[in-house]
């Protein structure tokens, strides 16, 4: 660990769901801190609460109890409008199934969060071009999702997630829909993003993705059972 300030601080968070007349806890008193510039991979078996944790960290869902502070802001008690605004500018989401808007081009997909944040058109067009170039898609800006491969779609999704310069990038099984070679390319892209300073939390079953992360957090039954720092922040290699 370094002395860098935590970008994310989750304290004793719980998330319970009603199921068949009783309450089931998907996350049970979990605490986690992520420093700026870290890349944390959350791993564990299916149903251990990884995705629920990611939704809580991204203000898509609210914890039943506990507190989550991201970039100095308590996101665990935000109202809908504030949470929406936070998701727009505070975090970036990458989903397993890419979830691009099929009727928009790659560039328009990247521009969508910026348009919502009322970034002027010229600025957002320039930023979209820059981001697409960063993820290696500078020639595909005008292509629609159906004209792109799975890997290319995921790259567009990453560019979209970075559009509003979020403090934290959250990725849910980002290689889950990709073949081994494309998955490896995606891991390399995440590695480059992290080396360039992006703080990342990924939820994954992909062993190679987990091994590429600086830190690996193991979850079981809604709690962290292991937390391994594989590469400290100051280790650039």
């Amino acid at each position, binding site marked *: 660990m370094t002395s860098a300030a935590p970008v994310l601080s989750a304290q004793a968070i719980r998330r319970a769901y009603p199921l068949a007349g009783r309450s089931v806890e998907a996350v049970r008193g979990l605490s986690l801190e992520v420093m700026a510039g870290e890349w944390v991979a959350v791993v564990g078996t299916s149903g251990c609460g990884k995705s629920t944790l990611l939704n809580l960290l991204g203000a*898509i869902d609210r914890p039943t109890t506990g507190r989550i502070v991201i970039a100095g802001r308590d996101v665990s008690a935000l109202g809908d409008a504030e949470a929406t605004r936070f998701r*727009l500018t505070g975090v*970036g989401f990458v*989903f397993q199934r890419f*979830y691009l*808007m099929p009727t928009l081009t790659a560039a*328009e997909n990247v521009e969508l969060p910026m348009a919502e944040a009322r970034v002027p058109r010229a600025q957002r067009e320039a930023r979209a071009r820059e981001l697409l170039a960063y993820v290696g898609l500078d020639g595909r800006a005008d292509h629609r999702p159906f004209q792109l491969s799975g890997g290319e779609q995921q790259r567009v999704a990453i560019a979209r997630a970075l559009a509003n310069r979020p403090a934290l990038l959250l990725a849910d099984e980002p290689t889950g829909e990709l073949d081994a070679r494309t998955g490896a390319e995606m891991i390399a892209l995440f590695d480059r993003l992290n080396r360039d300073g992006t703080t990342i939390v990924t939820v994954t079953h992909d062993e190679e993705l987990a091994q590429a992360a600086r830190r690996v957090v193991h979850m079981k039954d809604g709690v962290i059972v292991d937390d391994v720092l594989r590469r400290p922040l100051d280790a650039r290699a």
Partner: protein
Amino acid sequence: MIARLALAALTRRRARTALTIAGVAVAAAMLLDMVMLGSGMRESFRGFIDQQGFQLRLTPRGTMPFDSEATVGGAAALVTALRADPDIARVGPVLGGKHFVAVDTGVVAGFLLGLDPTAQGDYRLEAGRDLAAADEMVVSTAWLVATGRTLGDTIRVAGGYDPQLRRATGERTLRIVGLGRFQMLAASDRAAAVPLATAQAMFGADRADRVSVLLVETRGGADAEAVARRLEAGEPRLTALSTEAALKFVDERLGYFRQLAFILASVSLAVGFLLVTTLVTVSVNERIGEIAVMRAIGVARARIVSQIVLEGVALSVAGATLGLGLGLVTARWLNGILATFPGLPAAFDFFRFEPAAAFRALGLLVCCGIAAGIWPAWRAATLPIATTLREEAVA
């Protein structure tokens, strides 16, 4: 971007969208036609009355103009008294009855109006000139066709005819000087107009110095309704009918038409609403995952609602625009059919295009489009994001 997404959502399934717009257009056309029907006949009637320029019609007590063959006597004295009234600018006495013309194949019967050519509102001259002498007549096109005569011809016309004795009465030799459009009569009516005195003489002694109706134009500033009440009080043999009272009478007679139009217009609105709701709901259900993603990446609820409502509005506006054209064409076609009903004035419109009423109705349809989008939009915007994404992933 939101408008772009809304448009893209509509063009994604083009055939379905086109069919929905066609459906809304049919509903809009029907709505427009019903609005035009609801006010058309009334406004058409008002047009006739206003065109004549007379605010009052004096008829024998308890009758409507030409509702019966009733007449009122002492016409000359009545006209003189009315013309002396300071509130009255113009008086047009009219006597109506049948007339007969012998032709090669038998006898042609028609409607004869005796009137004062300087104060009349029954016909509009379309060719030739107006009546200037006692032995002149203005006729309708149907009259010319039926008798085989032309402008300038001189002809024997009878005010009465006994078919058993085959004997004409009240015959006069008249010259056809003008072709007129008789506004309150059907295009197929064989109509003729002669000076009042000529008609009174042709109809015989029992119609001498009698009139069927007296048209009265009040002076500017005079309250027509008050003048009507005053005239009725002063002359108990007469009923004074103002334009507004005549329209009220027409309203009562056309009540069923208006109710029918209102019901069908309401059905059209409901159909338009349901069509748009159905399409938007189906479209939203297909895109529920996309909407959840938009919410997840920070697109505000209001923006989602706006996009979906915009889709409903676009469908309604497109349908209403097409429906406007379709409704006008349909109205014209139906008008053509209904205008051939026997006894209706030639220029009578069942469907009259009143821009304000038409655009109000179409505006209402567009409002229905907005309302139609609100429920599916709100439903989509309030879905739990995490659950929806998980269900989409499983699906």
